[in-house]
């Protein structure tokens, strides 16, 4: 199904400086027992947000009223671990449109992009500076321009270029859906089957 289009976003950020945040933290396995794609945002970072009795853990960033916005800024190697797309669904469902990190796990990155969630890779230096700016001033805004492929910290930050495959960029900008595309080339795939098998 076509996803929401994404081009530019200006927003405050939610900082999560931990490295190697794995998919079991993003959404624990016991919350995967659903047959629909909806409602996973409720359990995003479940065990960091709530204690075993379901009480809110005050010191976790999602429970900190100073931070909000549609950009999640995360430490290096975000989304490592399982292939569960529920992780991307949960982040999107919670309200994020962009995740910024200096490295993403491969499968997570694909899952995010397939759901119109931009996994935006920046340099470690940029990430470090960004964390610092946000911690100094939680109202710091960041602008992401997908078309021109840059990210900048407002109002004065130096825009940083980021890489994204042209194909992925096309999909996000237009909300294209890859299943529809593959369905449209089934003939070509059948031809491949005949030719190579």
């Amino acid at each position, binding site marked *: *199904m*076509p996803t929401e289009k994404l081009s530019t976003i200006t927003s405050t950020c939610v900082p999560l*400086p*931990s*490295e*190697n945040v*794995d998919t*079991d*933290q993003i959404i*624990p*396995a*016991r919350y*995967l*027992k*659903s*047959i*629909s*794609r909806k409602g996973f945002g409720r359990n995003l970072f479940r*065990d960091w947000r709530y204690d*075993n009795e379901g009480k809110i853990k005050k010191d976790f960033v999602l429970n900190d009223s100073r931070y909000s916005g549609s950009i999640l800024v995360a*430490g*290096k*190697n975000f989304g*490592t*671990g*399982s*292939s*569960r*797309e*529920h992780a*991307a669904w949960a982040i999107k469902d919670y309200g994020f449109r962009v995740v910024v990190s200096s*490295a993403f*796990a*491969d*499968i997570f990155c*694909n*899952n995010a992009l*397939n759901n119109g969630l931009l996994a935006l890779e920046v340099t470690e230096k940029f990430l470090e500076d960004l964390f610092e700016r946000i911690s100094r001033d939680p109202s710091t805004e960041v602008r992401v321009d997908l078309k021109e492929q840059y990210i900048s910290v407002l109002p004065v930050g130096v825009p940083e270029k980021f890489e994204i*495959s*042209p*194909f*992925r960029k*096309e999909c996000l900008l*237009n909300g*294209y*859906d*890859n*299943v*529809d*595309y*593959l*369905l*449209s*080339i*089934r003939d070509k*795939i059948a031809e*491949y*089957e005949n*030719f*190579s098998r």
Partner: protein
Amino acid sequence: MALTSVTYYSILFNNSNTIKLSKKTIFDKIWDNHVVCTLKGGTDVLYIDRHYIHEVTSPQAFEGLRLRGTGVFRPGRTTATADHNVPTKDQHLPLKDKLGREQLEKLEENCLEHGIMHFGLNTPYNGIVHVIGPELGITRPGMTIVCGDSHTSTHGAFGTIAFGIGTSEVEMVLASQAILQNRPGKMRINVEGIPGEGVTAKDMILHIISKVSTNGASGYFVEFAGSAIENLSMESRMAICNMSIEMGARGGIVAPDEVTFAYMKGRPYAPKGKDWDSALEFWKSLPTDNDAEFDMELFFKAKDVQPMVTWGTNPGMGTEITGKIPLERKIDCGSIASFRKALEYMNFSPGEKLEGKEIDYVFLGSCTNGRMEDFRAFASLVKGRRKSDRVTAWIVPGSKQVEKQCREEGITAILEEAGFEMRQPGCSACLAMNDDKVPEGKYAIATSNRNFEGRQGPGSRTILGSPLTAAAAAITGKLTDPRKI
């Protein structure tokens, strides 16, 4: 349906298998063979030979097909099993957990509707997806294989390009038998020589990950090669490829050889007769050509590997069982902040010895170490000894076939005599979606593949190790060097 959008993508090359490079890696050979066409920016439409599905990551994909009003393109290329949230006791009874039961029912219903082969609960070929695929001969050299589970990398042991995908991609494969992929980089990890006694494939891969780190192979597909790999059984090669994902790799691969062919022969779904002969000829053409180039190459010596355990909250945080948790100034597995966070979670201190730490739970099983070889190893140590009273053990075969063979070989009897209970197959405490959960604050030694925070239940503390190391801990109730038993 927004079919207008699809005409937009321009196709750059068709069937790039017509481009012949002189020196190719096994990865190149298989990948090139499966490119239907290439889109702008280099993304390939990759044909998928074999697709495995299970109850947790497939329902939303079938739902997507339904909403689009389309069916499964090649149902014969998909195989289903129920494994992730099944109980390991009383499988003949309906699942108590309503949501889990719904997932199993949905899987059955979807497979029936679309004509997909389904090894459901209580059928003789049921088991963990990455155990049954190879065991039944459905996984074969030279294939592209995907599944909505990251440990699909396991199948790489057969000389396949196998990797985990998300649910959107499951839907792509169901809809078209193809997915969109960017070609990963190529890495080769060479392990030479003969490992010491009591050292298993699990120790080798934990050793490698502890050096490479949990994301050190990000963006690469890793070929494992060298005499130490060649000398491994198929089941050991599977354990190695299984955990390639734990260093961030897209997958692992081992070139097929006589060991592979001997394992394949006679499996229920393996080719037979003339088909076998032609398959064999093709398989023999797969190994990496001499002088083929890799983007990165690493070298290890098998004799440097000792029985390994993890002390932190990712698989890269590991060391020899006789070793110590590193000191803060000596860590090479990430930042000091993540080191401290991991130790706080585990309630360990820098510089502490690992041997002798008390263990509450033991888990033998999973797609990493839930096969015959693992059960034989575990039983070899516990034979004639008793399970420690302080330990709760979950002994979970990877499949119905493993369960059956354990009974036939007398392994079940040995385990029961030692005070263990044989459970029924499934993923079990590997991800604790069923009732097999380690309670908060308790220590488990697990033969599975992930020691993430809460992986085995909220607040659980997981130490990864080999089946031998798990057996030693099960007997003594403490982390114990298996070579000393």
